[in-house]
């Protein structure tokens, strides 16, 4: 009995392990964010386009909003830019940009040439705010609900499909939640 059961159990255990571990659609670099369900870290930085002004997420209290981390040195950010533009045209929620460890002029040029999907862009030149948000690569996109809690983090270039399948249901749920 043991002779057959034990190898079979080992086989099943390995099969389950490999089904998770070797799944090609799993992004091995995507880490779960410990921020989910916690209050969004507050920030007040200078406005990318107008250094005289500051951008703070305090002003967005009570609103559902999206924070998109990007930089001009980040190739996948270029890739997602068109999708972000299209999404911003739909005016569902404000999209706030966090320009991460970038050069102000290059970032300004980028938005002039490619279009600006952001309601406002905070300029995080030394990357301190990014550390607070647990950013470890760009692009990253966070969803914050009306209670100021981070409810979702997406690591990879944004696409319309991801927006429709991952963001829209959560935005609608957050709004139904009285926020």
């Amino acid at each position, binding site marked *: 009995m043991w002779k057959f059961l034990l190898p079979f159990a*080992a086989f099943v255990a390995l099969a389950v392990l490999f089904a998770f571990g070797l799944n090609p659609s799993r992004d091995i670099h995507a*880490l779960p964010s410990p921020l989910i369900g916690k209050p969004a870290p507050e920030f007040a930085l200078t406005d990318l386009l107008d250094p005289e002004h500051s951008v703070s997420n305090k002003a967005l209290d009570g609103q559902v909003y999206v924070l998109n981390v990007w930089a001009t040195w980040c190739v996948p950010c270029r890739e997602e830019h068109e999708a972000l533009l299209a999404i911003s045209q739909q005016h569902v929620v404000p999209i706030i940009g966090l320009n991460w460890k970038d050069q102000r002029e290059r970032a300004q040029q980028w938005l002039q040439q490619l279009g600006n999907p952001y309601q406002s862009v905070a300029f995080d030149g030394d990357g301190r705010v990014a550390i607070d*948000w647990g950013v470890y690569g760009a692009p990253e996109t966070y969803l914050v609900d009306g209670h100021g809690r981070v409810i979702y983090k997406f690591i990879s270039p944004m696409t319309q499909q991801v927006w429709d399948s991952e963001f829209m249901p959560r935005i609608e749920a957050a709004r139904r939640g009285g926020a």
Partner: protein
Amino acid sequence: MSRRPSWRRAALWLVLLTAPGAWVNAAEAPTVAAAAPTVPGSAPAAAAAATAVDANGQLEDRALQARFEDITKQLRCLVCQNESIADSNAELAGDLRRQVTEMLVAGKSDDAIFHYMTDRYGEFVRFNPPLEPKTLLIWGAPFFMLLLGAFIVFRIARQRSRMPLDDEPSTESR
């Protein structure tokens, strides 16, 4: 005379070969609790900050520098996930090293620094996770494998001792 099923021999070898290695890995990692001296609080942070780092980028306070090296070796660089932030050239690793330096100069304890990092990046940021209920599996697995190996050896040895020797007259019919 029956031969030992080959799968059992294979399993024995697998366990014997992997268990000691895994156990040594776990044992070699310095325990965090031991490596976390708490620092007398309220260091004169502002005064220290001005003179904290010398021309080579080392903390002037030797004790702080030693703690800096110890801590940054135990924090994972999240960009190149198998390097520590002490070794990595990634920009983010540089930012995190700066953060560790500033917190050390401000008189923060090692625990406070590790907490700061795990609050933002999750337990994954630590190469050396603390022994907690949820990390019991990774700390306990090597010992479990060792026990499993011992059990299999015991079973085989017992079975073998029951086998008749070749030059002994056997009562068993062949």
